[in-house]
């Protein structure tokens, strides 16, 4: 996997290059015994720890958007088996930015819906950079209703910069397609688990995220608007994106404090893109844990608890019930 370094990773890369040079110089000798080699190796380790343990909100956003980060279909391949993709919303078209279908994880047969980005230009165009149209949300709802009908749990993967802001999306009412999902997911009579694996971009993310359990990867973010969007509106310039990311408290830890995510799935040091397999194992373990907990809960109770959970979100003064 090509893992192009991010700007803040440059100190690590520089040290690694230094080490390589030195090793080449020393070739044939006992490389690992060389004190200079050991010194640089230690420094790399320290620098790496220092950088990755102190990531800013904006640095995490960059990791969440990394081209080499595992996407939904990677997790479907690594953490699930027997995926059968089902296409189309039965109304207009099949949205490639939102694949979905049947898949098995551990002992659970389930319905999976997911945002999907592409890695190369061609694939990214086909996937519309992970920005779904109304067709995607309507397909997702169709599959969720199928899940309810056949007693299958729903696992959704959230990874989108946002629902697509385009003419066609507006003409076919992308807002309504999201709104209907919010309403219907709230009363879906089957267990639902959502995982924010990369970008949780606003309403486009929430449109498949009104779930019994919401999990998030350590470096993923979930926000009411992209940092660039917030910067453009509140700071009048996109270059303030880093400040906006900080101010909006969009990281996994903050969201857990707010009660909006139920569990943080750990990533390998430096981000999920450094080790797809390890990330998929962690994700599989977490999803299975929650599916097992939800399996025993009667459907009516699931719905009541789901409503109670989302009902709580809000920060205000006063307002005792009348």
């Amino acid at each position, binding site marked *: 996997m090509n893992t192009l370094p991010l700007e803040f990773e440059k100190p690590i890369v520089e040290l690694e290059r230094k080490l390589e040079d030195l090793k080449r110089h020393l070739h044939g000798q006992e490389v690992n015994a060389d004190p200079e080699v050991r010194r640089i190796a230690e420094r790399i380790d320290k620098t790496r720890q220092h950088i990755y343990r102190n990531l800013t909100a904006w640095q995490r956003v960059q990791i969440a958007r990394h081209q080499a980060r595992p996407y939904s279909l990677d997790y479907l391949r690594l953490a699930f088996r027997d995926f059968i993709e089902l296409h189309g919303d039965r109304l207009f078209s099949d949205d490639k930015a939102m694949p979905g279908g049947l898949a098995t994880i551990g002992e659970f047969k389930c319905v999976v819906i997911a945002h999907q980005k592409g890695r190369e230009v061609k694939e990214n165009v086909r996937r519309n950079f992970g920005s779904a149209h109304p067709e995607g949300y309507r397909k997702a709802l169709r599959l969720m209703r199928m899940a309810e009908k056949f007693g299958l749990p729903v696992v959704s993967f959230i990874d989108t910069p946002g629902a697509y802001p385009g003419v066609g999306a507006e003409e*076919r009412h992308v807002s309504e397609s999201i709104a209907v999902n919010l309403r219907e997911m709230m009363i879906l009579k089957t267990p639902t688990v959502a995982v924010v694996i990369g970008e949780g971009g606003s309403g486009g993310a929430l449109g498949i995220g009104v779930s019994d359990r919401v999990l998030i990867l350590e470096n993923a973010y979930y926000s009411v608007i992209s940092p660039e969007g917030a910067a453009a509106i509140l700071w009048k310039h996109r270059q303030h994106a880093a400040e906006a990311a900080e101010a909006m408290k969009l990281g996994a830890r903050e969201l857990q404090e707010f009660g909006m995510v139920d569990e943080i799935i750990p990533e390998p040091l430096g981000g999920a893109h450094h080790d797809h397999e390890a990330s998929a194992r962690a994700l599989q373990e977490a999803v299975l844990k929650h599916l097992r907990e939800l399996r025993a809960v009667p459907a009516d109770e699931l719905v009541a608890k789901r409503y109670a959970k989302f009902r709580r979100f809000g920060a*205000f003064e006063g307002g*005792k019930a009348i």
Partner: protein
Amino acid sequence: MSFFEKPSFIGGGKKKQIPNGLFVKCPGCGELVHNLELQENQHVCPNCEHHFAFGARERLAHLLDPESFVETDTDLRPVDVLGFQGAAAYKERLQKYQQKTGLVDSVVSGLGKLDGREVSIAIMDFEFLGGSMGSVAGEKITRAIERATARQLPVIVISASGGARLYEGMFSLMQMAKTSGALALHSQARLPYISILTNPTTGGVTASFATLGDVILAEPKAMIGFAGPRVIRETTLQDLPPGFQTAEFLESHGLVDIIVSRKKLRETLISLLAYLCCATPQSV
């Protein structure tokens, strides 16, 4: 340097000064309209039917049976939950708009009557921080819906909003789920919900309760959409079709049931509720 500089009255001769805000230039027809005339006409231009912005309280006074409105949840107050320090601090913005509008937040809600029929109602006011939906707006709308469900009443929400309130981050986003979820329960109880879209209704409000009405009404020429036109143009590098994201556009594209002039709104609601409330006990 312009040859035709605007004459400045500031500090100038008093006799030439036009009392502030006596006339308004109508953006629809360009005519000068007297403020009092506008007020009497529910802020609709008497020449061209242009619908001006309409404050929540003033709208209520025209819409409901006289003296029937009882405001609820008046003690809900917004808080700066994120400690938002940006280009502007959220706390300062709140204070500014509270002073400017006399409102505590962007939604006024309560119980009232329409031709004797009790309804639960929530109205957004665009003047308060662009009608943005934060925790208080979401909570008030949710309570209005829940109150309707508990009392077996229809619920009416009149939207005017730029979308989510960014200063409250994810708390704002979650109001979308909360309000829409409350509507699910209201709908399951087979109670009517009428959503009225006014200029403008966009973003997270459009993508939640505003587009979930059993009947969706819109004021003429109201701008209604998910993403803003500038964002769409910049993202797609595409020209926008004529009339894009207007109420008329959305009616022809199948989202809006009826475009209703503000002056006909009351009678339209009364007629609609007479049909939709058949199954509920309070209609005799």
